[in-house]
C-alpha cells in the first residue's frame, strides 16, 4: 500500500471532520440529527462562488486578481469565503426561525424535527439545482502540481492549506468551547437545557450561537471541498453519511472526537480506494457507522460538547 493513502485520508478527513463538528454541535445542543447540514456545506460553497464571481472582476480590475503564491486562487476567494460564511449563517438562522424554532416552541418530538430537516434538505438541494443547474462548478481552473512532502507522499499547496486551516479552526474552536463563557454556556445547554435556564443562561441565544458556528464551519468545509474537487448541488448530500459516521464515531458532542472521527473516515476511504477499489469508497463510512453503533455506541469520546 502506498504511503500516499495517509495524506489522501487526512485531506479528505479534514473536510469531513470540519463538517462533522457542526453536525455534532447541533445534535448535542438542539438534540436532533440535522439532515440539512450537508446542504449548508453545498450552499456555503455556492454562495462563496457567487460572491467570488462578483469580486473576481473587481479585483482583476484593481490588479490583485492573480493567484496568491503557490495557491490556485487570488484574494477573491478568502474575501468571498468570509461573505459566504455570513450568508450561510443567515440562511441557517432563517431556516431555524421559520422551521426548527417553530417546532421547538410547539414542543415537537425529535423525530418530527428530524423529518422536517430531511424535507428542508431536499428543498434546499433542489433550490440549488434550480438556481445553479446540476453542472459542476469550480472556484479556479488553475492547474496545481503536487509537491513532495516527504515519506513518499505528495500534496498540492491547496491541499496543504486546507489541512492547515482545519487544524487552526479545530484548535480555535476547542479553546473557545472549553475556555470562553459562551463555550461554557454551550456545554451547559448541551448537558441540561432546563438547568441552564435556572442558572440564568438564555438557551435561545446559545442555540443561535450554535447555528452560527455550525453554519460558518459548514461553509468552510464546502469551500474546501469545492476547491479541491468541484462544486455540485449534491456535494453536501454525498458527504452526509461520512459526516454522520464521523460525528457518531467521535462521540456526539465532542469537537475533538468529530475531527478525529472525520480523519478516521477519510483514512478509511483512502485505504478502501487503494486496496478494494474506488467504487467502494462511499460504502466504507456506512460500514464504520454500523460497526461503531454495534461495538461502541457512545463513540470514542462519548460526552456532550
Amino acid at each position, binding site marked *: 500500500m502506498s504511503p500516499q493513502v495517509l495524506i489522501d485520508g487526512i485531506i479528505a478527513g479534514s473536510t469531513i471532520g470540519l463538517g462533522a463538528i457542526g453536525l455534532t454541535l447541533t445534535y448535542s445542543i438542539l438534540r436532533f440529527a440535522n439532515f440539512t447540514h450537508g446542504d449548508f456545506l453545498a450552499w456555503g460553497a455556492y454562495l462563496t462562488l457567487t460572491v467570488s464571481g462578483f469580486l473576481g472582476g473587481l479585483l482583476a480590475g484593481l490588479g490583485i486578481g492573480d493567484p496568491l503564491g503557490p495557491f490556485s486562487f487570488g484574494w477573491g476567494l478568502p474575501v468571498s469565503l468570509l461573505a459566504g460564511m455570513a450568508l450561510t449563517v443567515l440562511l441557517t438562522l432563517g431556516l431555524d426561525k421559520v422551521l426548527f424554532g417553530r417546532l421547538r416552541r410547539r414542543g415537537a418530538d425529535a423525530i418530527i424535527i428530524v423529518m422536517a430537516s430531511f424535507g428542508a434538505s431536499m428543498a434546499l438541494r433542489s433550490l440549488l439545482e434550480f438556481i445553479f443547474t446540476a453542472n459542476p462548478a469550480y472556484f479556479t481552473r488553475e492547474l496545481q502540481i503536487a509537491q513532495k512532502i516527504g515519506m513518499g507522499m505528495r500534496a498540492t499547496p491547496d491541499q496543504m492549506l486546507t489541512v492547515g486551516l482545519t487544524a487552526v479552526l479545530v484548535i480555535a474552536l476547542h479553546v473557545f468551547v472549553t475556555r470562553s*463563557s459562551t463555550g*461554557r*454556556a454551550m*456545554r*451547559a445547554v448541551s*448537558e*441540561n437545557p*432546563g*438547568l*441552564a*435556564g*435556572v*442558572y*440564568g*443562561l*438564555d*438557551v435561545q441565544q446559545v442555540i443561535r450561537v450554535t447555528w452560527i458556528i455550525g453554519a460558518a464551519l459548514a461553509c468552510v468545509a464546502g469551500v474546501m471541498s469545492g476547491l479541491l474537487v468541484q462544486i455540485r448541488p449534491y456535494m453536501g448530500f454525498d458527504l452526509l453519511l461520512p459526516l454522520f459516521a464521523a460525528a457518531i464515531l467521535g462521540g456526539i458532542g465532542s469537537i475533538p472526537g468529530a475531527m478525529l472521527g472525520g480523519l478516521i473516515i477519510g483514512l478509511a476511504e483512502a485505504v478502501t480506494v487503494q486496496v478494494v477499489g474506488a467504487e467502494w469508497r462511499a460504502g466504507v463510512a456506512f460500514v464504520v457507522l454500523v460497526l461503531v453503533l454495534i461495538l461502541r455506541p457512545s463513540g470514542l469520546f462519548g*460526552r*456532550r460538547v
Partner: protein
Amino acid sequence: MSLLRLRDFSAGYETDLPIVKHVDMDISRGEAVCILGPNGAGKSTLIKAIAGQVRCLGGSVHLADDDITNAPSHALARRGLGFVPQTENIFTQMTIRENMQIAAELLPKARRADQMQRLFDMFPDLKARPNTLAGALSGGQRQMLAAARALLTVPEVLILDEPSAGLSPKLVGQVFETLRQIRAAGVTLVLVEQNVRAALDLTERAVVLVDGRLAHDGPTDVLRDGKLLGELFLGSRHAEVVA
C-alpha cells in the same frame, strides 16, 4: 409590602388539568417559609411554576413590583429569583469552578471574583477542590454546590425543592446546616421538604398544600406537635387558614 406575591395562582402541565389551584400567598423579605403537604399535593409544581419551569395556568405571581408570571427561567434568575431543583441541579460534566463561573456571569464583572471567593469561603468543602468534576461529588456536596451556585447571584428570594431528598441521614444534617447558614445570612427562603421536622425547625412559617389547594398558612409552632399536620394530611381538616 410582600416580596413574593401569588394571587389566584393555578399551574400544571396540561392546560385543562391544573395541579396547583387558586393559591394566594404573600412572602415578606427575609422570611423563611416551608411548603408542606402529602405526596402529590402539588408542592413541587407550585415552586416550579413560580420559577418558570412549569406553566402558570391562571392568576399571577409578582416579585416585588414586577409581574413574573410565566417569565422564562433565565429572566427570573437575572431578576433575582434563585431556584434549586430537587435533582439534576448542577452540571455534572463541568468542574465546581465552572458551575460557579456560569452563575457568576449574572453579576457585574467587577463583582464576580469577590463574590465567588465569598461563596467558596462559605463552603470550604467546595473551596478545597474547585477543579473537581461536579459529577464526582457526594449527594450532600452536590446540594451544597447547588445552593452555593444559587446564592452566588445574591438572589432576593431562594426557592429550594426538597434539598434533602434521597440523601443519607448524615448528609441530610449537612444540607440543613448549609440551609441554616443561608438563613442566618438573611436570605428570603422558600422550601419544599419531605423532612417535616427539619423544615419546621429551619423556617418560621409553614404553608400546607392538600390536593393543590392551600389548606393552612401560619407559624410553624402550631404544627410542631404533628396533630394539626396529621389532620391536614389525612384530609379530616381542610382549608383552614391559621392567621
